[in-house]
């Protein structure tokens, strides 16, 4: 999630480092986004109405974790290179997790013991 690169032909539009830093931790992590996408259409809850978000939080891109003001802007976003890149990443293998790190370190899968109660 880099900062926005200004277009070369426009002289005054500067790269905003501050807004980039501010938004860095607001964006969901790759693994959280991936888990959300794996859930499928039915399991997802309907988007909650939030008046602080653009478009009352109703126009959301799951891949990029962004809210849009209306449908047309969101559909415009779906055509962007950034979004398509993001979709490609999310279609690929699952992001690295702590479990992967443990397995790579030569540990076995976690041993949770026998299931005592059947839910």
């Amino acid at each position, binding site marked *: 999630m880099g900062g926005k690169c200004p277009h070369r032909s426009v002289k005054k539009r500067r790269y905003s480092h501050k807004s980039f830093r501010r938004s860095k931790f607001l964006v969901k992590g790759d693994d959280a986004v991936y888990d959300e996408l794996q859930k499928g259409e039915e399991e997802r809850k309907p988007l909650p109405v939030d008046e602080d978000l653009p478009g009352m939080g109703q126009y959301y891109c799951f891949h990029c974790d962004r809210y849009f003001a209306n449908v047309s802007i969101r559909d415009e976003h779906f055509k962007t290179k950034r979004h398509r890149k993001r979709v490609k990443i999310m279609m690929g293998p699952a992001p690295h997790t*702590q479990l992967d790190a443990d397995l790579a370190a*030569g*540990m*076995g899968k*976690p041993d949770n013991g026998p299931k005592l109660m059947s839910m």
Partner: protein
Amino acid sequence: MRLEKCWFCSSTVYPGHGIQFVRNDAKIFRFCRSKCHKNFKMKRNPRKVKWTKAYRRLHGKDMTQDSTFEFERKRNRPERYDRNLTENTLAAIKKIDKVRVDRESRHHAKRMKPKKAQLQREAARELEQSISMVKAPGALQRDPSLTLPIKVKVSKPEKVDNRMEE
């Protein structure tokens, strides 16, 4: 004492070492050193960074499937304390570790085996293709134009004699 693994490079994080980051969805990320933490902040993928264990595993650099990997694991089950069991476990750790190190060295040797033959093949090809660069020492003596013009200082034997007289 639980020894955790680094999220980025999969090395062991001992108590009092490294740093941990708790994301706002309560996921914990542990890092063994600032190098790993910085790489995480740069949003690098450990599978694409060559020095991490995840990369080495994925690309067949390290041993992947082995029965010795089944011993060390997170056990989320209570175990009643038993002195004999503890002693046996501590004795077994050394043995298992030795077996694992041996197998890893064997894996490495096996992986490096074709390297020597490849180097020899390359050397043979180089020799064959650029044999003209090599001249026999006899040819250099016969034709002095082949040698580089290096001036060699010749020490005078007279001075040495004077010193000896003094």
